[in-house]
């Protein structure tokens, strides 16, 4: 851990800010809804990965910890798919 992390941290911060600006830009951009949502989520995930890997030092932790922390993600996606599918299915009285 002798390396100077300062420049890495500064780079990450700039990167996060730029990504945020791009996200805001996308939200005002008039494109197909599906792509907009997809792009926004991708950027959000990229930003989250930056924070987790650099600021939370996940990159320097042991592999196992990283793997275990990623186990809930497919599970949550599974739940989300189930819920979303069901939300779209039912007839709603308007």
């Amino acid at each position, binding site marked *: 851990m002798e390396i100077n992390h300062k420049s890495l941290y500064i780079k990450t911060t700039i990167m996060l800010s730029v990504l945020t600006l791009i996200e805001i830009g996308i939200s005002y951009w008039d494109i197909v809804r599906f792509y907009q949502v997809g792009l926004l989520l991708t950027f959000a995930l990229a930003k989250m990965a930056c924070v987790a890997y650099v600021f939370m030092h996940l990159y320097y932790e042991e592999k196992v910890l990283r793997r275990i922390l990623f186990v809930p993600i497919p599970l949550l996606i599974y739940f989300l798919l189930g819920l979303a599918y069901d939300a779209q299915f*039912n*007839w*709603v*009285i308007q």
Partner: protein
Amino acid sequence: MKNYQSKNINSIPYFFSGFWYKDPPKDVSLDGYRIDNVIHYTDLVIGIYFGIVVAALAYFIFKYRASLGHKAEYDHGNSRKNVMFTGGLGLLVFFSVDAVIEKMAFKDLKEAFWNFPKTENVIRIEVMPQQFAWNFCYAGPDNEFGTDDDIIPSQNQMHIPVNTPVVVQIASWDVIHSFYLPNFRIKQDATPGMITALWFQATETGVFDIACAELCGNSHYKMKGFLTVESEEDFQSWLSENTPEESQDDWDDWGDEDEEDTGVPEDWGWAWKEIK
């Protein structure tokens, strides 16, 4: 051909509960036998498996009890043979029970319960339970729901003709209820804000109970309706008896503010949803 299996494989519950064993309510529906058959098949196979387990247990308890003075065998059961054996038995259970009932269930769902009748000759009913009563609505002469000539009989009275498919759409007025017809082996939750559907066909005439199967408040137990299955002529004459009279509507709501609080309004009903 109505049956997958012979009708009376009830031996397992009978074995345990002896003379207290009770039959389910009489099945008077076209497809109720399918549910009974699945249950009976499951009864049979799990009875066999549980019997084997109990027999093994009894044998082990007798044979390997400590008083015989023998020493236990030192065996971790981790050998490949043992693992294959347990795994194989697990798969055997899966394929002999689970796979079969899954196949039966999917077949039944495809052929009956989720296969809504496409023919014209269908009775369509809207059901709106409230705390603690059942409201029913028939389309009336114009065959459209949500119009002035909808027939709304008195609460808790549902009439259907015999041997005609009945499609029911259900939505709750206040809390969650469940439309439960024990004699037809059918049940469907009524959720506020959402329409659910089911269909069934009666094969015998008579008066049967409608029960609410989902807890809906302190009088949940009293939330009872009556389903009268009658001949086509009786049904039509009952419908015409209940047809609303012209120009009476304007006076109905007058001064009924208090009742509006809890009960459903006079002219409830929603446009019939197409079933996919």
